[in-house]
């Protein structure tokens, strides 16, 4: 465990850009609440990506100008959004058809913990007295949608978030495809976690020290 906060690695904006470059043109993408929302601001030139928000909108656009908000046009995080030309609205059962039926291509989520086999914990810390709230997280990871996790590499207190086994209640088993942290981009493969890219000035060993399971390198 490494507790000292250090100023190396990617910024949150860099992390969002790293995710965005891995999203192909024409993808249908669901963005989780929080850091995942930043990904929409980094779509590379020439690509068109369509955002799904599970509360019933395909073709979610950016935040409206002040004064233009419609309290009945919001995203899953209950923030005001807009709709692009070519958008459409639908009810909740149809919306989750797009998720459960694997029509969405990619989902970008935050995480409390990711295990070395790609188990994800992002809905409950299991703390006694906490109000459990799951929302659509379990539906999003249940199918064959590619799951990209965007998260700081360690907790605020320096604990690894990439662990051998999740200690928090699971959202889903073997569901994460790639982890985008401030230190590295890590692919979750059948046989382990592969570091695909390191942040500038960050070494493999530096990342390994902050990661519970053994990391691998592409040969």
């Amino acid at each position: 465990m490494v507790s000292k906060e250090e100023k190396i690695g990617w910024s949150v904006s860099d992390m969002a850009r790293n995710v965005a470059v891995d999203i192909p043109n024409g993808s249908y993408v669901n963005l989780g609440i929080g850091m995942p929302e930043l990904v929409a601001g980094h779509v590379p030139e020439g690509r068109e990506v369509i955002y799904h928000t599970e509360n019933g909108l395909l073709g979610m656009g950016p935040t409206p100008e002040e004064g233009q908000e419609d309290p009945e046009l919001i995203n899953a995080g209950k923030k005001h959004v807009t709709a692009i030309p070519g958008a459409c609205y639908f009810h909740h059962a149809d919306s989750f058809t797009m998720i459960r039926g694997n029509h969405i291509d990619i989902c970008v989520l935050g995480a409390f913990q990711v295990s070395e086999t790609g188990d994800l914990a992002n809905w409950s810390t299991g703390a006694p007295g906490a109000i459990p709230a799951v929302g659509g997280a379990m539906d999003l990871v249940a199918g064959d949608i590619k799951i990209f996790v965007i998260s700081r590499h360690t907790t605020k207190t320096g604990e690894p978030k990439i662990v051998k086994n999740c200690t928090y209640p699971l959202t889903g088993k073997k569901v994460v495809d790639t982890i985008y942290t401030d230190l590295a981009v890590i692919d979750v493969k059948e046989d382990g976690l592969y570091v695909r890219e390191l942040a500038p000035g960050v070494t493999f060993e530096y990342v390994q020290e902050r990661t519970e399971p053994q990391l691998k390198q592409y040969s």
Partner: protein
Amino acid sequence: MINKIVASPAEAVADIFDGAVVMIGGFGEAGSPIELIHALIDQGAKDLTVISNNTGSGHVGLAALIAHRRVKKMICSFPRTANSKVFPELYQNGEIELELVPQGTLAERIRSGGAGIPAFYTPTSVGTPLAEGKETREFDGQTYVMERTIRADFSLVKCKAADRYGNLVYNKTARNFAPIMCMAAETAIVQAKQIVELGELDPEAVVTPGIFVSKVVEVADPAEESKLVAEDRRYPW
């Protein structure tokens, strides 16, 4: 003649009985039928089981219904939001039951309730605490959980426009759970911003066919929950 239009929210909710199962539309404030909920508070029915995605904000709408101890049990996917204080407090004191359901499973259980499907299988929640105690089964090498349908005695929803047959159209993401909740209720009660003549709604664009609706009341200028919460209003006022 068929006429599902009633004169007031109070009349619309008059038949809701103690112990009823009530579905309430809305995702956050979008689509929340706040005038119907307030009429239900006035009406007094208690020991309700409420099915709604959230538990309301501040001390108006669904949160006020809960604050008045009318709700015995909540079935929802996300019982806390930035401004939800009522439910968390009662829950932590053990004064209200909670059945937590993944959002897509909640939607499909409601839709199946309206569709005459008593149970279905879903991959959602397999291997998680929310699947504990539930029957699982393999199909084509993958594991699924069996989920039972949900039906309600009443649904309360909000829409943009309605006609006397009960045909409905909605506004943007305020649609959310309303169409399937209308399907799954014995009596679906709707507050509409506008009531229009038969034929004014495009038959290709009707979202909820009138067959799923029992009562419609016009509420031309519904309150905005977020404004009421920002002003710390409490119902009844």
